[in-house]
């Protein structure tokens, strides 16, 4: 299973429909200060179910909707989709009593080659989550990613400033960082 594509529209500074394809093992994102690089990271955290506006560098969740600029009017909503390739793979079958063999299954519990996970928020406050276009609850998204290492507090996303925060943290705060990962 791998992350194949990110699609954003109306999310923070990405007013227009924008796609990032992740077809290579290491993708670099570059550009001047203040242009939207870290907003890409926020988009991934948001679609994975991030519920704290503060951790998305805003004061309220509505702050994720494109708020307008000198040349553009605010948008009516934000939408982010993560597309995962979800082929049949062989896994260690540790559950069954007749000994550990390997079993063929898909990493994400949806029986399709690709899985689209979408989150939307509208300026009237309505919000929704979707898997392959079907409305689901946040709980379903969390369940989908259970035991895959993907999630908002997993250590796979090291946002800007986390290194500095780790260095300025005291021993008790450092403990809290490790507890999150446990």
């Amino acid at each position, binding site marked *: 299973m791998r992350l194949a594509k990110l699609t954003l529209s109306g999310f923070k*500074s990405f007013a227009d429909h924008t796609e990032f394809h*992740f*077809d290579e093992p*290491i993708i670099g994102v570059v550009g001047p200060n203040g242009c939207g690089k870290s907003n890409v990271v926020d988009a991934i955290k948001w679609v994975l179910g991030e519920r704290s506006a503060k951790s998305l560098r805003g004061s309220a969740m509505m702050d994720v909707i494109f708020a307008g600029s000198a040349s553009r009017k605010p948008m009516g909503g934000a939408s982010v989709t993560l597309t995962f390739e979800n082929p049949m793979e062989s896994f260690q079958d540790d559950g069954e009593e007749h000994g550990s063999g390997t079993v063929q299954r898909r990493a994400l519990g949806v029986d399709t080659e690709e899985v689209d996970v979408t989150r939307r928020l509208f300026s009237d406050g309505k919000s929704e989550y979707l898997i392959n276009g079907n409305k689901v609850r946040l709980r379903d998204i969390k369940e989908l990613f259970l035991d895959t290492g993907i999630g908002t507090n997993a250590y796979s996303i090291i946002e800007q400033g986390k*290194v500095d925060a780790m260095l300025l943290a005291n021993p*008790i705060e450092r403990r809290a960082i490790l507890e999150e990962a446990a």
Partner: protein
Amino acid sequence: SRVRFEETFNAVRENFAGSSGMFRRLFGGGSADLFLVPDEEGQTDWLESGIEIRAKPPGKEPRVINQLSGGEKTMTAVALLLAIFQSKPSPFCILDEVDAALDEANVERFCAVVKQFLDSSHFIIITHHKTTMRLCNQLYGVTMPQRGVSKRVAVRFEEVGEDGQIDEAASE
């Protein structure tokens, strides 16, 4: 969930401070340790104690993380974060400007370590360092041709300036 914390702590400690752990790989030697901070009576407690980091860069005396130089601190913190990531692997890892305080030699060691994760994870790396850009198989530029509105452009390494500025010529 004392047992879970103890297991995670020991796994992270090994990934961080072990003989082929992240610290030694990033510094090219030296040693480090992660330990529970004892209270006034010298007792430690899996459920309560804080965590301190000790680091000994190669050829230097051991010090707690506050006494290191800026770059040494960053390398130590990155080693710990990657050690935690290693203990709970995931198909992708996102790094947002973790290499900002590093000099050339340290950036090269950082890139070498990232490569060692590629058999289990893909990386998305935001950076201003040319050396880290060279590590990437593909580069995306994010610019604001219209103030306040982000645009994604695909760029080649040569089109990125000395420090992350993108050539006007880069295409959508």
